């Protein structure tokens, strides 16, 4: 059972981060709680032996997405009412929906439908088969994601620059 101890610890840390995200008032604290959750998840991936995914989790999520998020929070006005008042009018239905979903999914997990005996597989995950499969079988998907990223960058620039909707842009459409 000792090998499960790190998993329990990091799971507790991730869960704590998720709860703090719900109750923290300032978005910066929510962002820090989310970073803590992501780091705990990266530690869980490393414990499972999937080190590649753990590295991606830290590099992409914590290193890129959350730094971006923190910069955006610093850009925003802290006198905004949404910084003071945490919850919207949907507080009660939201908590109800969450409880119902947790009960349903938790029942499915607890009933053991998906818990076949674990083979000692985590040690079997190796970087080399992953890389070979990645660049032999899935190279087209990889290229498609790069196209998707370029499309996202172009769309972000278009959204930020489109003044008043029609003016200036859209001219090349016709």
């Amino acid at each position, binding site marked *: 059972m000792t090998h499960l101890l790190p998993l329990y610890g990091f799971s507790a840390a991730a869960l704590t981060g998720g709860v703090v*995200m719900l109750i923290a008032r300032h978005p910066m604290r929510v962002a820090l709680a*989310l970073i803590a959750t992501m780091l705990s998840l990266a530690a869980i991936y490393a414990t499972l032996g999937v080190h590649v995914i753990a590295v991606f989790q830290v590099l992409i999520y914590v290193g890129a997405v959350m730094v971006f998020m923190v910069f955006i929070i610093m850009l925003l006005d802290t006198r905004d009412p949404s*910084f003071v008042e945490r919850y919207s009018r949907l507080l009660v239905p939201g908590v109800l929906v969450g409880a119902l979903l947790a009960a349903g999914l938790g029942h499915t997990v607890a009933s053991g439908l998906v818990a076949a005996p674990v083979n000692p597989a985590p040690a079997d995950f190796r970087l080399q088969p992953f890389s070979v499969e990645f660049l032999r079988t899935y190279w087209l998907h990889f290229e498609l994601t790069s196209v998707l990223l370029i499309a996202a960058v172009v769309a972000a620039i278009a959204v930020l620059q489109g003044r008043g909707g029609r003016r200036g842009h859209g001219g090349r459409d016709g």
Partner: protein
Amino acid sequence: MDSTQLLLALSVALFTLGLAGVIIRRNAIVVLMCLELMVNAVILSLVTFAARAASASGAVLALLVFVVAAAEIAIAIPIVLRLVKQRRTLDVGAYAELKG
């Protein structure tokens, strides 16, 4: 409770917390971060199954999901910034006419 079941339970808990956050929180940036939490919960279950099967394809799929989530946030943040520039507030309740 074995490790698969533990991690799936954690995934359920994080997904639920994220969904509750998307519904109940007022600040648009916080709503986006709760969306990220939901994506992370889904990736956790994906990686759990991939690690259990020692599947390289599962890890590739997880990587692709990472990239798609990064693209999603790269387009969501400018939309939020644009809304804030127009309406001067981050309160998602102020954009009620987006309901259609």
